[in-house]
Protein backbone atom coordinates (compact mmCIF):
# COMPACT_ATOMS: atom_id res chain seq x y z
CA UNK A 1 0.00 0.00 0.00
CA UNK A 2 1.31 3.45 -0.89
CA UNK A 3 1.15 6.35 1.47
CA UNK A 4 2.40 9.58 -0.02
CA UNK A 5 3.50 12.81 1.57
CA UNK A 6 2.90 15.97 -0.45
CA UNK A 7 5.87 18.03 -1.52
CA UNK A 8 6.39 20.82 1.00
CA UNK A 9 6.76 24.07 -0.91
CA UNK A 10 7.14 26.76 1.75
CA UNK A 11 10.09 25.36 3.71
CA UNK A 12 11.74 28.74 4.31
CA UNK A 13 8.55 30.15 5.76
CA UNK A 14 8.09 27.11 8.04
CA UNK A 15 11.72 27.27 9.08
CA UNK A 16 11.38 30.93 10.07
CA UNK A 17 8.21 30.30 11.99
CA UNK A 18 9.74 27.37 13.84
CA UNK A 19 12.87 29.30 14.69
CA UNK A 20 10.76 32.15 16.05
CA UNK A 21 8.16 30.16 18.02
CA UNK A 22 9.41 26.57 18.35
CA UNK A 23 6.04 25.55 16.91
CA UNK A 24 4.83 25.30 13.34
CA UNK A 25 2.04 23.71 11.34
CA UNK A 26 2.45 22.13 7.92
CA UNK A 27 -0.93 22.05 6.20
CA UNK A 28 -2.04 19.60 3.54
CA UNK A 29 0.64 17.14 4.58
CA UNK A 30 -0.52 13.89 3.00
CA UNK A 31 -1.59 13.34 -0.56
CA UNK A 32 -5.40 13.14 -0.78
CA UNK A 33 -5.86 9.44 -1.44
CA UNK A 34 -3.45 8.46 1.33
CA UNK A 35 -5.28 10.78 3.69
CA UNK A 36 -8.68 9.30 2.80
CA UNK A 37 -7.43 5.74 3.29
CA UNK A 38 -5.81 6.45 6.63
CA UNK A 39 -8.75 8.48 7.90
CA UNK A 40 -11.18 5.61 7.33
CA UNK A 41 -8.78 3.04 8.80
CA UNK A 42 -8.12 5.09 11.91
CA UNK A 43 -11.81 5.81 12.48
CA UNK A 44 -13.03 2.27 11.94
CA UNK A 45 -10.31 -0.39 12.11
CA UNK A 46 -8.03 0.33 15.02
CA UNK A 47 -8.39 -1.14 18.50
CA UNK A 48 -7.38 1.47 21.02
CA UNK A 49 -6.14 1.03 24.53
CA UNK A 50 -7.10 3.65 27.08
CA UNK A 51 -4.01 5.28 28.47
CA UNK A 52 -4.25 7.04 31.80
CA UNK A 53 -2.21 7.98 34.82
CA UNK A 54 -3.17 6.40 38.12
CA UNK A 55 -1.46 5.33 41.31
CA UNK A 56 1.76 6.97 40.23
CA UNK A 57 2.10 5.15 36.95
CA UNK A 58 1.00 5.16 33.32
CA UNK A 59 -1.51 2.43 32.59
CA UNK A 60 -3.20 1.05 29.50
CA UNK A 61 -6.47 -0.83 29.46
CA UNK A 62 -8.44 -1.85 26.38
CA UNK A 63 -11.97 -0.56 25.73
CA UNK A 64 -13.24 -4.12 26.18
CA UNK A 65 -11.55 -4.57 29.55
CA UNK A 66 -12.98 -1.27 30.80
CA UNK A 67 -16.44 -2.24 29.57
CA UNK A 68 -16.10 -5.55 31.42
CA UNK A 69 -15.63 -3.80 34.75
CA UNK A 70 -18.67 -3.44 37.02
CA UNK A 71 -20.32 -0.01 36.65
CA UNK A 72 -19.26 1.09 40.13
CA UNK A 73 -15.64 0.12 39.46
CA UNK A 74 -15.69 2.05 36.18
CA UNK A 75 -17.10 5.08 37.95
CA UNK A 76 -14.44 4.83 40.65
CA UNK A 77 -11.71 4.53 38.02
CA UNK A 78 -12.78 7.75 36.29
CA UNK A 79 -13.18 9.51 39.62
CA UNK A 80 -9.64 8.53 40.58
CA UNK A 81 -8.25 9.68 37.24
CA UNK A 82 -10.12 12.98 37.60
CA UNK A 83 -8.85 13.51 41.14
CA UNK A 84 -5.27 13.30 39.87
CA UNK A 85 -6.13 15.56 36.95
CA UNK A 86 -7.68 18.25 39.13
CA UNK A 87 -4.26 18.54 40.74
CA UNK A 88 -2.63 18.92 37.35
CA UNK A 89 -1.35 15.38 36.77
CA UNK A 90 -2.53 12.93 34.26
CA UNK A 91 -4.26 12.09 31.05
CA UNK A 92 -6.94 9.90 29.57
CA UNK A 93 -7.06 9.02 25.89
CA UNK A 94 -7.02 6.09 23.50
CA UNK A 95 -3.74 5.04 21.94
CA UNK A 96 -2.39 2.47 19.56
CA UNK A 97 1.36 2.12 19.28
CA UNK A 98 2.44 1.82 15.64
CA UNK A 99 4.71 -1.11 14.75
CA UNK A 100 4.98 -3.91 12.19
CA UNK A 101 1.86 -5.55 13.57
CA UNK A 102 -0.28 -2.43 12.94
CA UNK A 103 -2.53 -2.05 9.91
CA UNK A 104 -0.38 -1.92 6.81
CA UNK A 105 -1.37 1.64 5.84
CA UNK A 106 -0.68 2.91 9.34
CA UNK A 107 2.73 1.25 9.52
CA UNK A 108 3.49 2.56 6.04
CA UNK A 109 2.73 6.09 7.23
CA UNK A 110 5.30 5.69 10.01
CA UNK A 111 7.80 4.41 7.45
CA UNK A 112 7.09 7.44 5.27
CA UNK A 113 7.88 9.71 8.22
CA UNK A 114 11.17 7.85 8.53
CA UNK A 115 12.38 8.14 4.95
CA UNK A 116 15.58 10.09 4.43
CA UNK A 117 13.58 12.60 2.32
CA UNK A 118 11.16 13.37 5.13
CA UNK A 119 13.83 13.48 7.81
CA UNK A 120 15.89 15.83 5.68
CA UNK A 121 13.01 18.29 5.38
CA UNK A 122 12.26 18.01 9.08
CA UNK A 123 15.91 18.74 9.93
CA UNK A 124 15.76 21.77 7.70
CA UNK A 125 12.53 23.17 9.15
CA UNK A 126 13.52 22.59 12.78
CA UNK A 127 17.25 23.16 12.53
CA UNK A 128 17.83 19.94 14.49
CA UNK A 129 20.51 18.34 12.35
CA UNK A 130 20.59 15.19 14.47
CA UNK A 131 17.04 13.91 13.81
CA UNK A 132 17.38 10.19 13.11
CA UNK A 133 13.97 8.58 13.30
CA UNK A 134 10.36 8.97 14.35
CA UNK A 135 8.17 6.75 16.46
CA UNK A 136 4.41 6.96 16.35
CA UNK A 137 1.07 6.18 17.88
CA UNK A 138 -2.49 6.70 16.79
CA UNK A 139 -4.48 8.61 19.39
CA UNK A 140 -8.20 8.93 19.97
CA UNK A 141 -9.75 11.53 22.26
CA UNK A 142 -13.37 10.85 23.07
CA UNK A 143 -15.74 12.97 25.12
CA UNK A 144 -14.10 13.52 28.51
CA UNK A 145 -10.57 12.64 27.36
CA UNK A 146 -7.72 15.05 28.11
CA UNK A 147 -4.00 15.48 28.60
CA UNK A 148 -2.87 17.92 31.28
CA UNK A 149 0.09 20.30 30.89
CA UNK A 150 3.46 18.68 30.54
CA UNK A 151 6.80 18.71 28.75
CA UNK A 152 7.80 15.95 26.33
CA UNK A 153 11.44 16.45 27.16
CA UNK A 154 11.98 13.37 29.29
CA UNK A 155 15.53 13.07 30.64
CA UNK A 156 17.44 10.15 29.16
CA UNK A 157 15.34 10.14 26.00
CA UNK A 158 16.44 11.67 22.73
CA UNK A 159 13.14 13.28 21.75
CA UNK A 160 13.72 16.47 19.79
CA UNK A 161 10.47 17.32 18.05
CA UNK A 162 6.94 16.27 18.87
CA UNK A 163 4.50 15.92 16.01
CA UNK A 164 0.73 15.69 15.67
CA UNK A 165 -0.83 14.75 12.35
CA UNK A 166 -4.56 15.53 12.44
CA UNK A 167 -7.15 13.09 11.10
CA UNK A 168 -10.32 14.82 12.27
CA UNK A 169 -12.38 16.75 9.80
CA UNK A 170 -14.47 19.82 10.68
CA UNK A 171 -13.68 19.91 14.36
CA UNK A 172 -15.20 22.84 16.23
CA UNK A 173 -13.16 24.62 18.93
CA UNK A 174 -16.30 24.60 21.14
CA UNK A 175 -15.67 20.88 21.56
CA UNK A 176 -12.33 21.33 23.35
CA UNK A 177 -9.55 18.93 22.41
CA UNK A 178 -7.36 21.94 21.69
CA UNK A 179 -3.62 21.56 21.57
CA UNK A 180 -2.71 24.41 23.86
CA UNK A 181 0.78 25.81 24.43
CA UNK A 182 1.85 27.76 27.49
CA UNK A 183 4.63 29.93 28.77
CA UNK A 184 6.51 28.35 31.67
CA UNK A 185 4.32 30.33 34.11
CA UNK A 186 1.10 28.92 32.64
CA UNK A 187 0.11 31.91 30.51
CA UNK A 188 -1.53 30.61 27.31
CA UNK A 189 0.68 31.09 24.28
CA UNK A 190 -1.49 29.72 21.55
CA UNK A 191 -4.19 27.15 21.05
CA UNK A 192 -4.75 25.07 17.97
CA UNK A 193 -7.99 23.39 17.15
CA UNK A 194 -7.53 20.01 15.44
CA UNK A 195 -7.21 20.41 11.67
CA UNK A 196 -7.42 17.59 9.16
CA UNK A 197 -4.15 16.72 7.45
CA UNK A 198 -2.11 19.33 9.31
CA UNK A 199 1.23 18.28 10.76
CA UNK A 200 2.02 20.23 13.91
CA UNK A 201 5.68 20.24 14.91
CA UNK A 202 6.92 21.57 18.20
CA UNK A 203 10.02 21.65 20.30
CA UNK A 204 9.81 19.15 23.19
CA UNK A 205 10.65 22.04 25.55
CA UNK A 206 7.22 23.59 24.97
CA UNK A 207 4.70 23.19 27.77
CA UNK A 208 1.48 21.93 26.24
CA UNK A 209 -1.81 20.20 26.92
CA UNK A 210 -4.86 18.81 25.18
CA UNK A 211 -7.95 20.44 26.68
CA UNK A 212 -10.82 18.24 27.87
CA UNK A 213 -13.10 17.13 25.06
CA UNK A 214 -16.59 18.47 25.81
CA UNK A 215 -19.41 16.06 26.59
CA UNK A 216 -21.24 17.42 23.54
CA UNK A 217 -18.44 16.93 21.00
CA UNK A 218 -20.02 15.52 17.85
CA UNK A 219 -17.11 13.22 17.02
CA UNK A 220 -13.84 11.74 18.23
CA UNK A 221 -10.56 13.55 17.79
CA UNK A 222 -8.03 11.36 15.98
CA UNK A 223 -4.39 11.97 15.23
CA UNK A 224 -1.07 10.26 14.71
CA UNK A 225 1.52 11.58 17.13
CA UNK A 226 5.04 10.84 18.20
CA UNK A 227 8.51 12.23 18.31
CA UNK A 228 11.33 12.78 15.93
CA UNK A 229 14.38 11.67 17.87
CA UNK A 230 18.11 11.96 17.70
Amino acid sequence: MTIKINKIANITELKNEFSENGIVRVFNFLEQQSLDTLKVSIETKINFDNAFYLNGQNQEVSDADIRALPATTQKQLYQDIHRMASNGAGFLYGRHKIDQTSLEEVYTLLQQLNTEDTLKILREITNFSDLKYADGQVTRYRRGDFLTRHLDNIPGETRRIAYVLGFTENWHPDWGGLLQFFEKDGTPMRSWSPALNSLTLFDVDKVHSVTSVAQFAAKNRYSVTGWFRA
Partner: protein
Amino acid sequence: MKLSFNKTGNKAKIRQDYLNNGYVKLEHALTNETARFIHEKISNQKQWNLVFKNKGLHQDSNSADVEAWDEENKKNLTKLVHKQAENAFQYFYETIPIYDIYYDKLMPGHFFNDIVKFLNSEPTLNYFREILDAPEINFLDAQITRFKAGHFLNCHNDDVHGKNRVAAFVINLTKDWSVDWGGALHILSNKSEIEKSFSPTFNEINIFKVPVDHLVGYVSPFATGQRLSITGWLRSGQNPKNL
Protein backbone atom coordinates in the same frame (compact mmCIF):
# COMPACT_ATOMS: atom_id res chain seq x y z
CA MET B 1 -15.62 51.17 50.50
CA LYS B 2 -14.75 53.25 47.44
CA LEU B 3 -14.33 51.10 44.34
CA SER B 4 -11.61 52.21 41.96
CA PHE B 5 -9.35 51.30 39.07
CA ASN B 6 -5.58 51.28 39.22
CA LYS B 7 -5.14 52.92 35.79
CA THR B 8 -1.40 52.39 36.10
CA GLY B 9 -0.82 50.84 32.67
CA ASN B 10 0.63 52.76 29.75
CA LYS B 11 -2.53 54.14 28.13
CA ALA B 12 -0.94 54.79 24.75
CA LYS B 13 0.32 51.22 24.57
CA ILE B 14 -3.00 49.75 25.69
CA ARG B 15 -4.81 51.76 23.02
CA GLN B 16 -2.32 50.74 20.35
CA ASP B 17 -2.63 47.04 21.26
CA TYR B 18 -6.41 47.26 21.21
CA LEU B 19 -6.51 49.04 17.86
CA ASN B 20 -3.95 46.69 16.30
CA ASN B 21 -5.29 43.38 17.61
CA GLY B 22 -8.90 44.04 18.45
CA TYR B 23 -8.28 42.89 22.01
CA VAL B 24 -6.20 43.90 24.99
CA LYS B 25 -5.51 42.83 28.56
CA LEU B 26 -5.35 45.26 31.48
CA GLU B 27 -3.20 43.86 34.27
CA HIS B 28 -3.76 44.82 37.91
CA ALA B 29 -6.87 46.53 36.65
CA LEU B 30 -8.58 47.36 39.93
CA THR B 31 -6.90 48.52 43.09
CA ASN B 32 -6.00 45.54 45.29
CA GLU B 33 -8.60 46.57 47.86
CA THR B 34 -11.32 46.84 45.24
CA ALA B 35 -10.52 43.48 43.65
CA ARG B 36 -10.33 41.76 47.02
CA PHE B 37 -13.54 43.36 48.24
CA ILE B 38 -15.58 42.44 45.15
CA HIS B 39 -14.11 38.95 45.04
CA GLU B 40 -14.97 38.26 48.63
CA LYS B 41 -18.55 39.44 48.17
CA ILE B 42 -19.04 37.48 44.96
CA SER B 43 -17.49 34.25 46.14
CA ASN B 44 -19.89 34.19 49.07
CA GLN B 45 -23.01 34.60 46.92
CA LYS B 46 -25.56 31.84 47.36
CA GLN B 47 -28.11 32.83 44.73
CA TRP B 48 -27.20 32.38 41.08
CA ASN B 49 -29.14 31.91 37.86
CA LEU B 50 -28.21 28.83 35.90
CA VAL B 51 -28.53 29.79 32.25
CA PHE B 52 -28.78 27.72 29.05
CA LYS B 53 -30.84 27.52 25.91
CA ASN B 54 -33.75 25.19 25.33
CA LYS B 55 -35.31 24.99 21.87
CA GLY B 56 -33.59 28.23 20.95
CA LEU B 57 -34.90 30.15 23.96
CA HIS B 58 -32.86 31.50 26.84
CA GLN B 59 -33.63 29.81 30.17
CA ASP B 60 -32.94 31.06 33.68
CA SER B 61 -33.16 28.56 36.51
CA ASN B 62 -32.40 29.02 40.17
CA SER B 63 -29.04 27.32 40.51
CA ALA B 64 -29.53 26.36 44.15
CA ASP B 65 -32.87 24.72 43.29
CA VAL B 66 -31.29 22.71 40.48
CA GLU B 67 -28.48 21.71 42.83
CA ALA B 68 -31.10 20.20 45.15
CA TRP B 69 -32.63 18.04 42.41
CA ASP B 70 -32.00 14.29 42.47
CA GLU B 71 -29.20 12.87 40.29
CA GLU B 72 -31.58 11.60 37.64
CA ASN B 73 -33.12 15.02 36.98
CA LYS B 74 -29.75 16.75 37.00
CA LYS B 75 -28.47 14.23 34.49
CA ASN B 76 -31.46 14.84 32.26
CA LEU B 77 -30.89 18.59 32.31
CA THR B 78 -27.25 18.12 31.36
CA LYS B 79 -28.30 15.76 28.60
CA LEU B 80 -30.79 18.29 27.25
CA VAL B 81 -28.19 21.06 27.31
CA HIS B 82 -25.54 18.91 25.61
CA LYS B 83 -27.92 17.56 22.98
CA GLN B 84 -28.73 21.10 21.93
CA ALA B 85 -25.06 22.10 21.90
CA GLU B 86 -24.32 19.71 19.05
CA ASN B 87 -25.84 21.78 16.28
CA ALA B 88 -26.92 25.12 17.75
CA PHE B 89 -25.53 27.91 19.89
CA GLN B 90 -25.51 26.78 23.51
CA TYR B 91 -24.18 27.79 26.90
CA PHE B 92 -24.33 26.51 30.46
CA TYR B 93 -23.09 28.65 33.35
CA GLU B 94 -24.28 30.80 36.22
CA THR B 95 -24.98 34.52 36.34
CA ILE B 96 -26.16 37.35 38.52
CA PRO B 97 -27.71 40.08 36.34
CA ILE B 98 -26.42 43.09 38.26
CA TYR B 99 -27.25 45.61 35.51
CA ASP B 100 -30.92 44.62 35.70
CA ILE B 101 -30.78 44.45 39.49
CA TYR B 102 -29.55 48.03 39.67
CA TYR B 103 -31.69 49.73 37.05
CA ASP B 104 -34.86 47.76 37.82
CA LYS B 105 -34.30 48.41 41.55
CA LEU B 106 -34.63 44.72 42.37
CA MET B 107 -32.33 44.68 45.41
CA PRO B 108 -32.10 48.16 46.94
CA GLY B 109 -29.10 48.69 49.19
CA HIS B 110 -27.24 45.62 47.94
CA PHE B 111 -23.57 45.95 47.04
CA PHE B 112 -24.38 44.75 43.49
CA ASN B 113 -25.74 48.27 42.94
CA ASP B 114 -22.41 49.77 43.97
CA ILE B 115 -20.60 47.72 41.33
CA VAL B 116 -22.91 48.90 38.56
CA LYS B 117 -22.75 52.51 39.75
CA PHE B 118 -18.95 52.30 39.87
CA LEU B 119 -18.67 50.73 36.41
CA ASN B 120 -21.12 53.21 34.93
CA SER B 121 -19.57 56.28 36.56
CA GLU B 122 -18.12 59.05 34.39
CA PRO B 123 -14.50 58.41 35.52
CA THR B 124 -14.80 54.71 34.56
CA LEU B 125 -16.45 55.43 31.22
CA ASN B 126 -13.88 58.12 30.47
CA TYR B 127 -11.09 55.67 31.17
CA PHE B 128 -12.54 53.14 28.71
CA ARG B 129 -13.26 55.86 26.13
CA GLU B 130 -9.65 56.93 26.33
CA ILE B 131 -7.85 53.57 26.28
CA LEU B 132 -10.11 52.18 23.54
CA ASP B 133 -10.16 55.40 21.50
CA ALA B 134 -13.95 55.12 21.57
CA PRO B 135 -15.59 58.41 22.61
CA GLU B 136 -18.97 56.99 21.60
CA ILE B 137 -19.10 54.76 24.69
CA ASN B 138 -22.06 56.00 26.70
CA PHE B 139 -22.78 53.30 29.28
CA LEU B 140 -22.11 49.69 30.07
CA ASP B 141 -24.12 46.72 31.14
CA ALA B 142 -22.75 43.94 33.30
CA GLN B 143 -23.42 40.61 34.88
CA ILE B 144 -21.47 38.49 37.30
CA THR B 145 -20.68 35.05 35.91
CA ARG B 146 -19.53 31.80 37.47
CA PHE B 147 -18.27 28.77 35.56
CA LYS B 148 -17.70 25.44 37.27
CA ALA B 149 -16.92 21.91 36.05
CA GLY B 150 -18.88 21.12 32.88
CA HIS B 151 -19.85 24.71 32.13
CA PHE B 152 -19.18 26.43 28.81
CA LEU B 153 -20.17 29.28 26.53
CA ASN B 154 -19.95 28.26 22.92
CA CYS B 155 -18.84 30.36 20.00
CA HIS B 156 -20.76 33.57 19.28
CA ASN B 157 -19.90 37.10 18.18
CA ASP B 158 -21.88 39.34 20.60
CA ASP B 159 -23.34 41.29 17.69
CA VAL B 160 -26.99 41.79 18.63
CA HIS B 161 -28.92 44.31 16.55
CA GLY B 162 -29.87 47.44 18.45
CA LYS B 163 -27.58 46.79 21.44
CA ASN B 164 -24.85 49.14 20.18
CA ARG B 165 -22.08 47.10 21.73
CA VAL B 166 -18.71 48.73 21.08
CA ALA B 167 -16.59 46.27 23.02
CA ALA B 168 -16.98 43.38 25.44
CA PHE B 169 -15.13 43.18 28.73
CA VAL B 170 -14.31 40.44 31.23
CA ILE B 171 -13.11 41.50 34.68
CA ASN B 172 -11.32 38.34 35.84
CA LEU B 173 -11.86 37.70 39.54
CA THR B 174 -10.82 34.06 39.68
CA LYS B 175 -8.44 32.83 42.33
CA ASP B 176 -6.40 29.60 42.36
CA TRP B 177 -7.41 28.44 38.89
CA SER B 178 -5.39 25.71 37.20
CA VAL B 179 -5.09 26.29 33.47
CA ASP B 180 -5.66 22.55 33.03
CA TRP B 181 -9.25 23.13 34.05
CA GLY B 182 -10.08 24.93 30.80
CA GLY B 183 -12.53 27.84 30.92
CA ALA B 184 -10.21 30.03 28.86
CA LEU B 185 -11.58 32.89 26.79
CA HIS B 186 -10.66 32.02 23.21
CA ILE B 187 -10.87 34.71 20.54
CA LEU B 188 -11.17 33.40 17.01
CA SER B 189 -9.80 34.78 13.77
CA ASN B 190 -12.01 35.25 10.74
CA LYS B 191 -10.67 31.91 9.53
CA SER B 192 -12.16 30.27 12.66
CA GLU B 193 -8.77 29.59 14.13
CA ILE B 194 -7.98 30.47 17.71
CA GLU B 195 -6.17 33.75 17.60
CA LYS B 196 -5.72 34.36 21.31
CA SER B 197 -6.48 32.55 24.57
CA PHE B 198 -6.83 34.07 28.02
CA SER B 199 -6.93 31.77 31.04
CA PRO B 200 -8.98 32.91 34.03
CA THR B 201 -6.90 35.13 36.33
CA PHE B 202 -7.35 37.52 39.20
CA ASN B 203 -7.79 41.24 38.68
CA GLU B 204 -7.14 41.43 34.97
CA ILE B 205 -9.57 42.79 32.40
CA ASN B 206 -9.87 41.37 28.90
CA ILE B 207 -11.44 43.75 26.41
CA PHE B 208 -12.27 42.90 22.84
CA LYS B 209 -13.99 44.67 20.00
CA VAL B 210 -17.48 43.56 18.97
CA PRO B 211 -18.22 41.73 16.77
CA VAL B 212 -15.67 38.93 16.96
CA ASP B 213 -16.18 35.19 17.31
CA HIS B 214 -15.19 33.98 20.76
CA LEU B 215 -15.99 31.28 23.28
CA VAL B 216 -15.38 30.25 26.86
CA GLY B 217 -13.81 26.80 26.65
CA TYR B 218 -15.50 23.80 28.23
CA VAL B 219 -14.52 23.59 31.89
CA SER B 220 -13.00 20.17 32.58
CA PRO B 221 -15.18 17.79 34.58
CA PHE B 222 -12.31 17.54 37.08
CA ALA B 223 -12.10 21.31 37.77
CA THR B 224 -12.58 21.97 41.45
CA GLY B 225 -12.49 25.78 41.40
CA GLN B 226 -14.89 28.44 40.23
CA ARG B 227 -14.20 30.87 37.41
CA LEU B 228 -15.58 34.20 38.59
CA SER B 229 -15.84 37.36 36.55
CA ILE B 230 -17.84 40.47 35.91
CA THR B 231 -18.57 40.65 32.25
CA GLY B 232 -20.57 42.88 29.95
CA TRP B 233 -20.44 45.39 27.15
CA LEU B 234 -19.36 48.96 26.64
CA ARG B 235 -22.21 50.43 24.63
CA SER B 236 -22.96 53.55 22.63
CA GLY B 237 -26.36 55.22 22.36
CA GLN B 238 -28.92 55.67 25.06
CA ASN B 239 -29.02 53.36 28.08
CA PRO B 240 -32.49 51.83 27.61
CA LYS B 241 -32.86 51.34 31.37
CA ASN B 242 -31.89 54.90 32.22
CA LEU B 243 -34.11 57.08 30.03
